[in-house]
């Protein structure tokens, strides 16, 4: 297992390098640059800016300098659009925000989604099943950009209970609506996957054997059904976790959280090359790590899987 993990991590390095090179080239292929603006800059001002940020070097040199900066100093460069800040500072400011509401939404979505799915599967075709399926379909068809305004309407405008947006690490009242708005549709997906996977497992031979042995139903479910039923859920959760903690542009814009999700989209639109690269690498690295985590979890849950 250890060797497997090491091998996977070794492959991650060239993967990340390829990601950097491709993103870098693609980004520079897009028309315009960070300093393209309505008010065209005089050529000498533009030249000064390009020189300051090294944008006057040939592309291959920029890529090498960029990678070297990361490897040697863990320096992801300065932001072109926020001149007083470096990419490290911007990510350090925005990532904890999305990490906070993303993780909370993830936990909520997993707990409720798995709960609903299991309930629906156990009491298959009963009222509880219909209720759980109803809730999950309802949650699925309410996308976060519809959910968010409804929440604000209710909790801010009507009842004045929660702030309509913004962010504070010390005041959880700012977290509640982003968590609900982000987590709801994921919860629905998790519930549906859990339900169908659970139904399949409950109909399988080893469950019948367990029941035949006279094992109490709750032990059958917890010890023998739940674990194998979780496999498809877990493979779904790996990438979902990454996308949740790196934020949602809808949530960030709607609740003005200052999170990294909006920063990512903005950096693409603003051609803020360094920020865009920084977030791309962050998301890429997290994806690689969590895919690995999922695979390791697989082996732990399913004894049939060996690396």
């Amino acid at each position, binding site marked *: 297992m250890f060797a497997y993990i090491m091998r996977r991590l070794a492959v991650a390095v060239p993967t990340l390098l390829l990601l950097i090179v491709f993103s870098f080239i693609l980004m520079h292929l*897009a*028309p*315009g*640059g960070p*300093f*393209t*603006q*309505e*008010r*065209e*800059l*005089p050529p*000498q*001002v533009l030249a*000064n*800016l390009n*020189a*300051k*940020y090294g944008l006057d070097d040939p592309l291959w040199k920029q890529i090498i300098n960029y990678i070297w900066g990361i490897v040697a100093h863990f320096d992801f460069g300065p932001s072109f*659009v*926020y*001149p*007083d*800040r470096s990419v490290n500072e*911007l990510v350090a*400011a*925005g990532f904890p925000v999305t990490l906070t509401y993303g993780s909370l939404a993830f936990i909520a979505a997993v707990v409720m989604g798995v709960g609903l799915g299991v309930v629906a599967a156990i009491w298959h075709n009963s009222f509880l099943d219909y209720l759980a399926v109803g809730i999950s379909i309802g949650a699925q068809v309410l996308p976060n950009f519809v959910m968010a*305004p409804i929440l*604000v*309407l209710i909790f*801010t*405008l009507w009842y*004045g209970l929660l*702030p*309509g*947006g*913004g*962010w504070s690490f010390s005041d959880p009242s700012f977290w509640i609506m982003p968590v609900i708005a982000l987590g709801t549709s994921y919860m629905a997906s998790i519930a549906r996957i859990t339900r169908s996977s659970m139904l399949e497992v409950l109909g399988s031979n080893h469950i019948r054997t367990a029941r035949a042995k006279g094992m109490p139903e709750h032990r059958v479910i917890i010890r023998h059904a739940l674990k194998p039923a979780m496999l498809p859920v877990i493979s779904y959760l790996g990438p979902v976790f990454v996308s949740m903690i790196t934020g949602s542009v809808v949530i*960030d*814009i*709607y609740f*003005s*959280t*200052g999170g990294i999700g*909006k*920063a990512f989209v903005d950096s693409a*639109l*603003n*051609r803020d090359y360094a920020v865009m690269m920084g977030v791309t690498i962050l998301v890429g690295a997290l994806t690689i790590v969590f895919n690995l985590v999922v695979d390791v979890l697989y082996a732990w849950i399913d004894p049939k899987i060996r690396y």
Partner: protein
Amino acid sequence: MTKFFATTALVASLAMPAFAVQPAEGEQLAENQVYNFWLLDAIKSVDPAKNTDVEGSDVLRQLFEGLMNEDEKGAMVPGVAESFEESDDKLTYTFKLRDAKWSNGEPVTAGDFVYAWRRAVNPETASEYAWFMELMNIVNATDIVKGEKSPEKLGVKAIDDKTLEVTLTTPTPYFIKTLSHATTFPVPQKVIEEHGDAWTQPGNLVGNGAFVLKSHNLGVDITMEKNPEYWDAENVVMQTVKGITVNDNNVALTRYQAGELDRVQIPAGQYPRLEKEAPDQAVSLPYACSYAYVYNVSEKGPEALKDVRVREALSLALNRDIIVNNVLQGGQKPATTWTHWAIEGFDQPETELATLSQEEKTQRAQELLTEAGYGPDNPISLTLQYNTDENHKKLAIAAQQFWKPLGVNITLNNVEWKVHTDRMQNQDFDMARYAWCADYNEASTFLDWFRTDGYNSGKWSNAEFDQLMADAKTAEDTTPIYTRAEEILAEEVPAAFVYHYAKVDMINPDIKGLPTENVLNSWYAKDLYRLAD
């Protein structure tokens, strides 16, 4: 000629200190003097040399103070400068500075301005607004930005701690009006040298404005508190000014209604409803920006647009009343000139566009096109490019419909903002939507755009127009010159001017002192106060 701005203005300032809008008698002040204003986006920088946007300027105006401020009508009033003298050749200005202090208690000196202005043009700073010093026509600004001269050669000098001398390359009638712009604000040399780029962080930042930076959560909020060291602090009523970022206009309106914000923009199309529901809150104020469809008349442009008759026909057929009254619905005005109607010292010329009725204009457009050999039998095909935005789209669709009966087939081309800008600057378009906002309250801020060496993405060029703009720099009375320049634009039609902006906002009626007649909409929190509910 010496202008004793001082004698009139200073006396006035003694009688009405700092031009602060003071509570009227019988007005009950709120205990909590706080003003929460809306920011659409994160503040990119609070460094005066590096700020590039309007929202950044709104923050900088509270944290720093330049030589001049604007009053509620947009007129220039003394800031750090107590008075100034203009030399007879209009090339040298000498400013007398008042006893102002930085927020760390140190005096604001002429040297601070010299440092700040040199820093703005220094290529090492790489200021995106270095061109502003060129616009001000300060001696050597252009050469320094190019890196051909050292920043010390900039035409700005501290005669002594309280006397600042500025020399210009050419007489510049609008020079004084540029002095309330954020790029010209003084900055504290010692603090910048001590902290480097981090000098703009709360705790490090030292300013000379009426407020100091308390906290700044990028993309969330920025809080400023009253600066006790400000020279006119005793007349500042407001205690806390907070900019709150809400990235969506509709959400911002909701949060205004929830009482979290004191002023927000009204989303397009909602003004008529809100004006009815809350007439004491919904306002529509003139705002010095103009919207146009620019024709590409360069070599790369389409053949049809090289014919002035076609350009004029398209402009005439554009039913601006429908655009303003039925699409925008926020008190904007139809544009018949490039210069915004409310700009000081500007008279709109009597052109066909301004005087004919829409039926007459459409008829005239048909005649012009027929003369030029076009019409429904020989249609013109053009693309109209605009950047992604719901309003631009609505307007472009309307324009497409107005032009269709004339035999002009428009393909709409919606592109992302950077692509739009890039294509415009490379003359890679037929017609493109464009807007320009005034840098200062004078017509040249608009008209310079169409100079041969101006931004002028359509590459229209006219010798008489260029000459007029050059003459305006030394003229005593510029009004007829600018009117004539607009006449040329009306004859030559380098663009179809669409509408003049209005600032359409909801304002909490408890907040007093916000400017309602300043077309640049520069506001100063030092002039604001909050009434008790």
